[in-house]
């Protein structure tokens, strides 16, 4: 593990800003902030936006590279940092700044854990549609900065659809904001949208304004098992074309069903494809979903159809939400891709995946949401044979690298191109493959944006597309 050293004066400057108690420098404690095998020379824990701004200004002046973090559940996402001097730990920015249940609006700091926030909102019969991985640790800032996958996006959209505005600190140490706190607003440029999914490379998020949503009276989850990908896909299409309004609809290949434990739980063939659908609303609305879905599943040739209610209802959705964690538990050397695919090519992608993975002696898991709109989801690949599980041999790396390349190419070809990027993989592999696929024509515009927000490359340099 490489270590980073700051000069005495640089350290003194950081300590002077926050005091020694909030400046961590001992190597043992710093291991918690490791990113792709790199340790920072210090971790600092500011308490508010003003302190964040001071720290970023100090870092800019000293030409230090800063990576913002909080729950540290998603630090494996992104390229190997070009430099990493200071971990900017935002866990002390954990206040619920304002919450107006009557208006269904909320302002929070980035270090608030999503689990805690959902509990608070639940007391007022509301929630945020952020069902993200590592839910026990994940924070608002991380979920937004990584645009974390949530199976509920089929119904509620992604963060860009329910984040109303943000306050943030740019790479120049300016505190700025965009958007607002009301549910409808077109005042000024929507700069905050740029920060969603930017991995902290543009600005440090210090406050997020959300719209919240009422909790439904009832929730039920349905799973249907199919022998073939095509049949599962046809079922998804039928649901999308129906008047039903599911909260989530996800197609899982046998590998995904296996790692999630769904294969063992449900009374169906372990090699089956599964479709998981969440319905919510009044008893009548949920009942209608139950009736219609069962009929549609039968018509699509489902081998099995199950309804999960009460405490069990959370299980299948949890399996999807925690896809990344489950894949990593299955194999520490798993390569996990985030994919965006049009419904028309989802089945083709699923079939390509099996062929490509098989040719490289890899196992594959796929979970893709596809409710009527363009689908998004995950693919995980890991070595079939245990002897290769460490994935450090050149041969294993080469095999992963070409599988990922082929998959990205397959996903990106044809009239309805899919997009994919590697969200998570062993560091050694990160150095060998392009995590982001081929360069795109708008890259020069992304460079302009980076230059506006962080001209000196202080914030998470090297972590984003094309080394931004």
């Amino acid at each position, binding site marked *: 593990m490489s270590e980073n050293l700051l000069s005495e004066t640089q350290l003194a400057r950081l300590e002077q800003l926050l005091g020694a108690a909030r400046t961590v420098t001992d190597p043992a404690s710093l291991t918690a902030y490791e990113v792709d095998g790199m340790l920072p020379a210090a971790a600092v824990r500011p308490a508010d936006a003003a302190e964040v701004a001071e720290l970023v200004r100090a870092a800019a002046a000293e030409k230090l590279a800063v990576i913002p973090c909080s729950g540290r559940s998603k630090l494996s996402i992104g390229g190997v940092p070009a430099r990493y001097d200071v971990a900017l730990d935002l866990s002390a920015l954990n206040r619920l700044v304002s919450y107006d249940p009557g208006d269904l609006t909320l302002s929070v700091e980035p270090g608030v854990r999503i689990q805690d926030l959902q509990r608070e909102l639940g007391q007022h019969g509301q929630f945020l549609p952020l069902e993200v991985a590592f839910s026990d640790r994940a924070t608002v800032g991380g979920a937004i900065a990584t645009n974390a996958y949530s199976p509920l996006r089929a119904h509620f959209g992604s963060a860009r659809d329910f984040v109303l505005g943000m306050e943030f600190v740019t790479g120049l140490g300016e505190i700025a*904001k965009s958007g607002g706190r009301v549910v*409808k607003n077109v005042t000024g440029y929507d700069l905050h949208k740029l920060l969603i999914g930017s991995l902290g490379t543009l600005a440090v998020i210090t406050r997020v304004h959300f719209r919240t949503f009422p909790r439904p009276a009832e929730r039920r989850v349905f799973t249907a098992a199919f022998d073939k990908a095509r049949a599962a896909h046809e079922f998804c299409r039928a649901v999308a*074309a129906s008047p039903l309004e599911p909260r989530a609809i996800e197609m899982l290949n046998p590998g995904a069903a296996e790692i999630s434990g769904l294969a063992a739980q449900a009374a169906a063939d372990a090699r089956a494809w599964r479709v998981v659908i969440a319905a919510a609303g009044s008893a009548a609305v949920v009942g209608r979903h139950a009736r219609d879905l069962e009929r549609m599943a039968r018509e699509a040739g489902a081998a099995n159809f199950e309804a999960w209610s009460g405490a069990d209802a959370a299980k299948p959705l949890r399996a999807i939400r925690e896809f990344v964690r489950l894949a990593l538990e299955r194999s520490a050397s798993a390569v996990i891709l985030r994919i*965006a695919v049009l419904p028309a090519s989802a089945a083709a992608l699923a079939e390509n995946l099996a062929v490509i993975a098989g040719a490289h002696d890899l196992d594959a898991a796929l979970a893709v949401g596809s409710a009527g709109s363009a689908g998004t989801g995950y693919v995980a690949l890991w070595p079939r044979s245990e002897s290769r599980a460490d994935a450090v041999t050149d041969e294993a790396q080469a095999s992963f690298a070409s599988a990922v390349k082929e998959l990205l190419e397959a996903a990106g070809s044809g009239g309805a191109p899919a997009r994919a990027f590697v969200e998570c993989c062993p560091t050694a592999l990160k150095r060998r493959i392009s995590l982001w696929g081929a360069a795109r*024509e708008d890259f020069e515009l992304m460079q302009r944006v980076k230059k506006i927000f962080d001209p000196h490359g202080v914030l998470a340099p090297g972590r984003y597309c094309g080394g931004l």
Partner: protein
Amino acid sequence: MCTCLQGAERRGARDAGGVALTPPRGEDYSGARARFSRDCAHKSLNPKLIRELQNLLGRDAVLFAREDLLLYEYDGSVEIARPECVVFPSSTREVSEIMRLAKRYETPLVGRGAGTGLSGGALPRAGGIVAVFSRMNRILEIDAESRRAVVQPGVVNLDITRAVEHLGLYFAPDPSSQKSCTIGGNVSENAGGPHTLAYGVTTNHVTGLEIVLPDDGRVVRIGGKTAEPLGYDLTGLMVGSEGTLAIVTEITVRLSRKPEAVKTLLAVYDAVDDATESVVEITRRGITPAACEMLDGWTLRTVEDFVHAGFPRDCAAVLLLEVEGLAEAAEEQAAEISEVCRAHGAREVRLARDARERDLLWKGRKNAFGAIGRLSPSYYVLDGVIPRTRLPATLRRIEEIGRAYGFRIGNIFHAGDGNLHPLILFDPRNAGEFERVVAAAREIIQYCIAMGGALTGEHGVGMEKNELMPLMFTPEDLALMARVRDAFNPDALLNPQKILPLGKGCGELRVLPQTAASALPA
């Protein structure tokens, strides 16, 4: 600090003044218009540029005679600014070439759809070329399975729905002007509409764009058909940037599936407060109607005289509510809304019996501004947002402000999301009246912001409210926005003098002075 004023805007600025919320000092409204016309009349483009435009586009696609230009000096706002030349591109390549010519001749370029905008977004504030997109009005692709359509900017909003409704799909954003406004304008202004309460505004329904960059006319595609942006969300930045960052030449929109059931309700009230309290309670209960519109009694009577929608003439306010979705959900929500409205003093809750009745109610709502236009020589439609719980207090305050200034203020607005449209009737022929309208409007907007709201919910900032931006944003916020603008539009040739305060000096950047009637309540 004065950083938000630096950069290209200032360099590219030609003095063309401004009206509405940033009135010309010491001149009445008619004077302002006259001054504008004079200013614009003497400007004319370099004849060489006009010849080059004619060679590029053909003679019939270039207008420069004064009588032709007069048609393009207005939009739906109270602003006015005359172009020196109007062009009608037919393709992305032509737009790119026009941009290059504008750059070479250092001439401002402003895009225009149907000219229905309400904040002067399509007006050439610094003169120059206006590019009208009426010839780029083709729907290029409909992908029913992925629920996407790829369209040119000149396509009329409602025509997208018309083209896909046989597939059970529609385009959700529905501004009142949807029969004439274009998708290009909707994208520039991030347009809303009554049904955005449940479904979101334009930005939630656009996944990709083709844009022409102002610095070199380069054509770039951003976003795409898939829902997830890979890379910074440039599409999210472009939508609502009011044509100041790039020219949009192609749009990929998300299509929505038509709901199984729609129920439209009209709740009738004898007191405005009862109507607004009903909205607060509907929101608080977590019911999300597809639309929740309010019309006050005066507006309603005016509309009824014109549209004959069957609105009651003797009430203080109505709520026009719509619920959609599965038959079961629509049924239950309609019943619950009905119960809330009655509990809050509605004297009657009507349910539209069929599509004809429903269409009639909506016809009344969507033609309201036209109806009011019959009554008054002029009117000014404001656009402000408040947290929904503040609705009752805010409407009372608007009423007070109207009384203090001696204006009739009508209210017809998107109550469900707190997006107000106070409508001030005035006669611009009366000396000083427009200035008082501006002062009253500013007080209302300041009140909205003091309530935690926003400067504009759907009409945009444009040249109407750019000097009010400091009410919502700090100099640092505005400086960053200016850097973004300058990075994309470095010579300020594209739609100059919009959105950001021009601020001729630091003093003018500060919050505008309090006006007549009263200061803001604490």
